[in-house]
């Protein structure tokens, strides 16, 4: 069960986590609780996997280059092809999706040349063409994701 404090932390601190010597104390002051309350609530959220971490979020392509890649792979070969692709350390996410283009993955590389080399290698190894969908523009206006926690 989520307490009021859990919900406040989840919805109000997706951004603007204090950059100060005692950030949990600052949050505690803002919410009228103790630093120990905030620390234990965050520890619970973390332990229950309601948050994956507290920390800086870096937008894509600010450090290194990345691309979304789509492939069309026959169903019976999908797992084998996906395993080959997932074995690349540069491959970050890899999903099966319900579409003719049924394999979607993200490559993160140090630079454009490295990215191209990984794609070429994947195409050679799997013998399926990779459709490259790099991000051209990021329209995400980061207001934080408003969570409906009424039933959480």
């Amino acid at each position: 069960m989520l307490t009021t404090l859990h919900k406040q932390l989840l919805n109000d601190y997706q951004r603007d986590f204090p950059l100060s010597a005692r950030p949990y104390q600052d949050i505690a002051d803002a919410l009228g609780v103790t630093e120990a309350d905030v620390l234990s609530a965050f520890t619970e959220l973390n332990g229950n996997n309601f948050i994956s971490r507290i920390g800086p979020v870096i937008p894509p392509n600010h450090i290194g280059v990345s691309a979304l890649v789509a492939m069309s792979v026959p169903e019976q070969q999908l797992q084998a092809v996906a395993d080959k692709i997932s074995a690349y350390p540069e491959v970050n996410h890899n999903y099966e999706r319900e579409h003719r283009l049924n394999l979607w993955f993200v490559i993160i590389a140090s630079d454009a040349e490295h990215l191209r080399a990984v794609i070429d290698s994947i195409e050679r190894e799997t013998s399926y063409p990779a459709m490259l969908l790099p991000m051209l523009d990021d329209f995400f206006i980061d207001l934080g994701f408003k969570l409906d926690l009424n039933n959480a």
Partner: protein
Amino acid sequence: MLDETDRKIIQATQAGLPLTPQPYQAIAEQLGLTTDDVMMRMSAMQNSGIIRRIGAVPNHYKLGYRFNGMTVWNVPDETIDELGQKVGQLEFVSHCYHRPRHPTEWMYNLFAMVHGKSQQDVDQQIQQISDLLGDYNLGCDVLYSTKILKKTGFRTTARMQEVEQSMEQLPSSGKSKGTQPVTD
């Protein structure tokens, strides 16, 4: 520009700030820096946009948002900046990107990840985007994920020592099945 110390700070914070009263001090000690130096550098990186935000990263799946779709739209190129901004502001959209078309195989140039607690939620969200785009919606599709084949967060390899990457991502449910968004 990022220097080596900035990169080390990003790398050291990717697993999360420690849940101790003075988390930046802990990072500073780990890197042999002063707490002020860590905080000033993080502040500078935030001002320059290297760091988008500092905060708790919620696990939407675990919080009940189990229905996630990658919606893709074909909109006229001359409208995409304006329309992309509008779609990106919708509160249920977690990522919104312009990506290239690949005629004639793939005509969709606008990607928006949507998240809901039910299929009905997601259907309504898709309708809302469709209404927003109006006549500029020249075609759309929604791709649901059927299987997570790999999902890893930050890592550094020898080849990628220059890459200190934190993905703007929704965290994994830790399960092998489910609907999770693709981000990059």
